[in-house]
């Protein structure tokens, strides 16, 4: 039998619940840890950023209008999807990060467990981050955590899957819509998770995954006035410059290097606004 010709996949952007090529038509080559060709991925342009933000803005209202319990179910469904494609994810992590096979499998398992963890938090955030406040008067006073809105995430450059899960799922869990820029050199595990999100009941546009250059895509995201928050996790030495751009529209900015202890709620608090409600005490 003759040798099969390889069928290489070109990874597309995950935008508004669909897989699209970049508006620019550009792609770039992704190499594995050993410097061999691994995949072609779309290189997002600033117009892709614009489209992703428009989609996220529309989707955020739908996402937040679901019950918290329902959001939890949807996120859990994402874990189910990832579980079914563990081997594929592990292969990508292995090739991208250069781990050995058992380590890559373990890494994917931890990531999927994190998705389940976030699913659990979706309907418990309000109880933990919110509360009933004592006030001097005949009023009930409640603090309620509400989502910031559209959150951009510059994902970590080194950890291609685990860190992606944390960066994307934490704001999602709090009711935000997310535009995530996957690791520039290792984008495929993040793009795969984006693909899975499309088949996991997540309304289209709630999680958009872009691949591209931190310099250009990051700048478009940071300066975009309709983005409410940005996580600079993987921005590296561009964090300062992106923070300045983000300041133009007074965004919430999460700086890189903010390490959280595992199972801390700190990350969940990053893109939450507290709404305070007063209500008269009646009989």
């Amino acid at each position, binding site marked *: 039998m003759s040798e099969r010709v390889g069928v290489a996949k070109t990874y597309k952007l995950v935008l508004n619940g669909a897989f699209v090529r970049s508006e620019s038509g550009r792609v770039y080559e992704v190499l594995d840890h050993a410097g061999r060709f691994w995949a072609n991925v779309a290189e997002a342009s600033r117009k892709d950023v*614009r489209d992703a*933000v428009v989609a996220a803005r529309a989707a955020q209202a739908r996402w937040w209008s679901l019950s918290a319990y329902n959001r939890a179910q949807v996120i859990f469904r994402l874990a189910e999807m990832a579980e079914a494609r563990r081997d594929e994810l592990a292969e990508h992590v292995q090739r991208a990060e250069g781990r050995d096979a058992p380590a890559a499998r373990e890494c994917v398992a931890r990531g999927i467990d994190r998705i389940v963890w976030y699913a659990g938090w979706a309907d418990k955030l309000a109880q933990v981050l919110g509360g009933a406040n004592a006030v001097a008067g005949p009023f009930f006073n409640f603090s309620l955590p509400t989502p910031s809105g559209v959150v951009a995430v510059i994902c970590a450059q080194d950890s291609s899957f685990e860190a992606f899960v944390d960066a994307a799922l934490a704001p999602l869990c709090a009711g935000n819509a997310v535009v995530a820029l996957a690791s520039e050199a290792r984008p495929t595990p993040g793009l795969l998770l984006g693909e899975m999100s499309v088949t996991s009941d997540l309304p289209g546009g709630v999680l958009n995954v872009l691949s591209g250059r931190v310099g250009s895509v990051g700048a*478009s995201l940071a*300066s*975009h*006035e*309709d983005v409410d928050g940005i996580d600079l996790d993987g921005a590296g030495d561009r964090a300062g410059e992106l923070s300045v751009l983000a300041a*133009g*529209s007074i965004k919430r900015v999460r700086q890189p290097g903010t390490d959280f202890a595992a199972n801390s709620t700190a990350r969940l608090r990053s893109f939450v606004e507290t709404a305070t409600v007063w209500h008269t005490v009646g009989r």
Partner: protein
Amino acid sequence: MDARAGVRLLDPPRAPVIASEAQLRALLASLSGVDAAGAEARAAKLATRSIKTSSKRAALDMIISMIDLTTLEGADTPERVASLCDKARRPDARDASVPSVAAVCVYADLVGTARARLAGSTVAVAAVATAFPSGRASRRVKLLDVEDAVAAGADEIDMVIDRGAFLSGRLGEVFEEIVAVKEACQHAHLKVILETGELVTYDNVRRASWLAMLAGADFIKTSTGKVGVSATLPVALVLLEAVRDFAESTGRLVGVKVAGGIRSAKDAMRYLVVVNETAGSLWLSPTLFRFGASSLLNDVLMQRLRQVRGAYVRPQEFSAD
């Protein structure tokens, strides 16, 4: 510019006088059919033109100056119309370099409010009349509707044709009605809405365009915006070919208004390309080309501000109406 796109005008103008329905029928029958696949392909091709930097800036301002800022809701109030008028006069409160829109388009009963609020500006008041949007009323009621709007100070009247009569072949009736409405308009400009979404074929669109122009329309307009299918690029192309051919054979210049479903600056720019390539640059003016729209204005303002600031802006920068 495309050599075919310039119009050669007759001097002096000589529009044919339509004396009988048979003559009208013969004239419309003599029009060639529209190559539907060709029109769609040409429109799609023109839609791929890209307009950048200073041309884009100029196009955005041109679009603003061509907008008939429209509110045609049962829930319209004088206050809402007043605030729309203020926006029409000065679309971006922070930037005086943004041009005014061409007109404000309202129902006839709100013409007075708009007229008073727009006093001293260049913005015209347009009123929809003749039992808009269905056109289902007696001739007497339609004419009263028009007279009312004109008396209240409307500069432009948007009438609807009787699509039922047109589709069942009673062309004389449609023609006479337009002539009667034109007379009732007095000094006001008459825009004739063909409601192309209900005319089924491009051939019908071409015939209806000619019928309206022969009857004295100052503008032909695609749609009311109240039915499922509104303005499309190929339909605009057919209308623009009609005004171009009409201008060449009679010397009279008729405008085109596209309405319904045009929400983004990008869409609007595609129409401008089709205008320039079909009828010619003479039509790139608010006196001969208009957009009937409401949400389009905010998108154009957003694109304009993006060019100024260099970053994408949020929709909340501009009031809803």
